[in-house]
């Protein structure tokens, strides 16, 4: 079996947890444009909300 390295696996998908990805999608944001500030560059909920705030100030 082909075994992907952890690095490969992570390069393939957006670097965030599933609920945060869903949050971004519900707000129609493109995760690849959001900079992650979490552990190992993980995009956090705060990153998504901050990015959304930049786009559409409340």
């Amino acid at each position, binding site marked *: *079996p*082909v*075994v*992907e390295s952890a690095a490969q*696996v992570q390069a*393939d*998908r957006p670097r965030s*947890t*599933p*609920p945060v*990805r*869903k949050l971004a*999608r*519900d707000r129609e944001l493109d995760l690849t444009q959001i900079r992650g500030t979490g552990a190992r560059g993980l995009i956090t909920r705060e990153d998504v909300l901050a990015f959304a705030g930049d786009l559409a100030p409340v």
Partner: protein
Amino acid sequence: MAEQAAGQEFDILILGGGSGGYAAALRAIQLGKTVGLVEKSKLGGTCLHNGCIPTKALLHAAEVADHAREGAKVGVNVELKSIDMVAVNAYKDGIVAGKYKGLQGLIKGKGITVIEGEGKLTAANTITVNGVNYTGKNIILATGSYSRSLPGLEIGGKVITSDQALTMDYLPKSVIVLGGGVIGVEFASVWKSFGVDVTIIEGMASLVPNEDAAIIKVLERTFRKRGIKFNTGTFFQGVEQSADGVKATLVDGKTFEAELMLVAVGRGPSTAGLGYEEAGVTMDRGFVITNDRLHTGVGNIYAVGDIVPGIQLAHRGFQQGIFVAEEIAGLNPVVVEDINVPKVTYCDPEIASVGLNEKQAKEKFGDENVESTEYNLAGNGKSAILGTGGIIKFVREKNGPVVGVHMIGSRVGEQIGEAQLIVNWEAYPEDVASLIHAHPTQNEALGEAAMALAGRPLHG
């Protein structure tokens, strides 16, 4: 036309107090709206009184009977003496009564105005009940559905629908179930567990034709093993009733005889004569057509639940009811597509699915862009202990997220929660695979499936 007496005005006026209607009412009250809820029969609707709840009570009694029958296999010496349908119904009715009481208390306690009687939409903002006009700044249509039949097939005598089946106080010797969809396979499963000889007639190529092909295969194999007979792929032609029972004929001339026939060919929308068309609402074969935000296009009229084309499930009704209440309150809620609504069929073995099946995924992404894995419950310790086979199937977009989870096996309906988070949150198999599941549960089979799809099965 005589003048109508003027009734109250509400922020939101809802026609029908079933799953869709009462969920809208509860959410609307939470959001500070005044709510009128028109119900001609009983709050709770089909689901509570003639649907979800009573059928699942029967299915649990069926499970208890099966456990008794198979007790010796696990060292518990049990004699199954009889099924007492009067007592089964008392149990079932007790569950319904308890939930009904709770719901009535909840609805009244929150300050929702319940208007008893049959309502009719008489203007874009008006529902008339027993000669009184009630108005709503917003109207939600939620009149639900009824057991359909086929053209020329009359219900009556020994030809019954789920409504009659749920009140029967005896067990027939044999039954023909017309229709191998959700409701048909659930009743077939109950009756078989109660010792009835069951034959399902399904015109489509297989039982539960909307499920993934792999699931269908396991269901048909297991039903066959349980001695539930079925004839698929040939349409029904007609039925004759006699003193002894019924004789059903298929279009190819084949006949089946039994004491009773249950017609379970789907549910039609309850919309006839309710003034919807006259108000300008777009209708299609009795269903109410809305945009994707459930607005009918007329005034402030919305529709929710079984009258809106799509999967007819109670929790879809809940969700749509909540959605419309939030929409009216300006909360701009997110649309949940039907495909991402979890679906459970409670026959034994249970079926649970959410998202795209393999065929749908291939249509959407292209054959070469879909990967799937089937984890066989034969490898799952808890399933072996319960004596159930089955599979957990994950479908993913290649290098992408899981887009569908499909499961079959005793009790797997309860796995739908994890499956639903995975699909709705667009998790990758790797996201799930990195979390080890609890041993020994049936749940860990989802972990194994995710690990396999991520390219690193643990026990495989």
